[in-house]
């Protein structure tokens, strides 16, 4: 079974799509991948909780509370989430 695997860039786009829905008043056109989201966007802990919950709702991905720091930047999110996306795709 070789499900087409998701690239890190595609994974980042999934995260961006979620942020765009959670925080439609943020300009996401110039988000830097290696900078903490919190340092370039007005995103608070309630918004982070929403990113986690949207990942669960839309993609069935569980992020335990201990792993929340992995979502700090787009790069770290992609590192952490891409294998999870691919593991889920392989199961389907």
């Amino acid at each position: 079974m070789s499900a087409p695997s998701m690239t890190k860039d595609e994974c980042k786009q999934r995260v961006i799509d979620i942020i765009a829905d959670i925080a439609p008043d943020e300009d996401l056109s110039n988000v830097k991948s290696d900078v903490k989201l919190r340092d370039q966007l007005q995103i608070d802990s309630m918004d982070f909780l929403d990113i986690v919950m949207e990942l669960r709702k839309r993609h069935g991905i569980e992020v335990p509370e201990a792993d929340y720091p992995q979502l700090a930047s787009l790069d770290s999110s992609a590192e952490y989430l891409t294998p999870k996306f691919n593991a889920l795709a392989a199961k389907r």
Partner: protein
Amino acid sequence: MNSRAHYDVAIIGAGLSGLAAGIRLAHFGRRVCIFERHNAPGGLNSFYSITGRKYDVGLHAVTNFVRPGVKGTPLGTLLRQLRISREELVLCEQKRSRIAFGPRGETALCFTNDFAFFEAEVARVFPAQIDGFRQLTQLVRETVYAPDSPAQSARAVIQAHIADPLLADMLLCPVLMYGGAQEHDVDFRLFALLFRAILLEGLARPYEGIRALLRLLLDKYRAAGGERRMKCGVRRILARGGQAAALILDNGEEITADQVLSSIGGPETAALIEAAAGAEAPTPAPALPAGQITFVETVTVLDREPAALGWGDDTIVFFNDSERLAWARPEGQVDVRSGVVCIPNNFEHGPGQKLPDGIVRATCLANYDRWATLPEDTYQADKTRWYGLIQASFRRFLPPVGDAALASATVATDMFTPRTVAKFTGRLNGAIYGAAVKQLDGRTALANLHLCGTDQGLIGIIGAMLSGITMANERILRKPA
């Protein structure tokens, strides 16, 4: 007969906090049902019609107004959490409001949605107090209203910065009028929250009043898949082993839910709890006494804008005619010495948006017991009498308008009393701001039953919605599905 409904979450009350909680929970896939006893949603912020004319109850103004683009404030949080865009909730700003003290409002501080304007007013009227006022403002900005921060007397904290008791009372007045659940004083954390909401941020209103907001919330809730049962309140909460095991509805039906959120008030919720058949009686929680602060409100409907009659541009006027501001249940039926006037026409509704009538609402402290048990004819006669006394009182604080001109421009009047509030909302004593003691963590005697809304501690329209959001997040969504 094993068909009783089961929900992930049952919410008691379709007010602003219950609806906001419901939107969050339904959006994230929980099976939710809101049970509302009344036929209209909104709870303490609702609406009614008499002879085709629409009236709002509750909403004078939406607090916490900031302009689009201003981030990191409660309004922004609320809109994001409920997935509401600024285009969906258009808010019209106040023109200018006023805190007026003295027998004819001789000492007045005006405010707008620009805090620098209010600060300049304080400097002009109370030049000796401006440094203390700035220190107090800084403290307000730094104060957090959270379960783990200590409660303090607002009067004591204000007094430490402001020596002139007149200014101290003038600063307390809008806060108490829009959220003072406790007699005589208020928790400084709540004072700070409301001071920010009213003065540091600002006041606004949807053109169509509370209906616009409720419609939006109901649409979001429905779209997210939430269920709602109207004219179907919760009569009993059956407890077993420290949990809410089942809910008995007004029609006798029994339903179950993993979690229950109650927006109907702390003492009101506690009164519904009883042991399930064969279960041990639940350990009673420390009793929260019912609140004592309630109001009467008069509504005067005019055939023209109040400004055209000569009542000026004020949006909200907080008034008090006495040396000090008394904040307690009055001895008599109503205390007309102080109150709030709201003129909905005096929001900047924008071109082409003119309210169909001129409306002036005036609100004064009242005593529930002195209204609750009157025979119907006495009740009606007292309403008429107090309507006149309240009008005579607030007119002292507005530009003069002749009796004949006012009478000929008046096309309708209405009035609600604490008895009306109790009847339609189930609030004990008609206490609009709920119990004097708040339960910031939302806990009750039962592990899976949580409070949201007024008695969880967040007051007002924005506060109620934030309370629903916070309790849904902290008590339910943070836990794995």
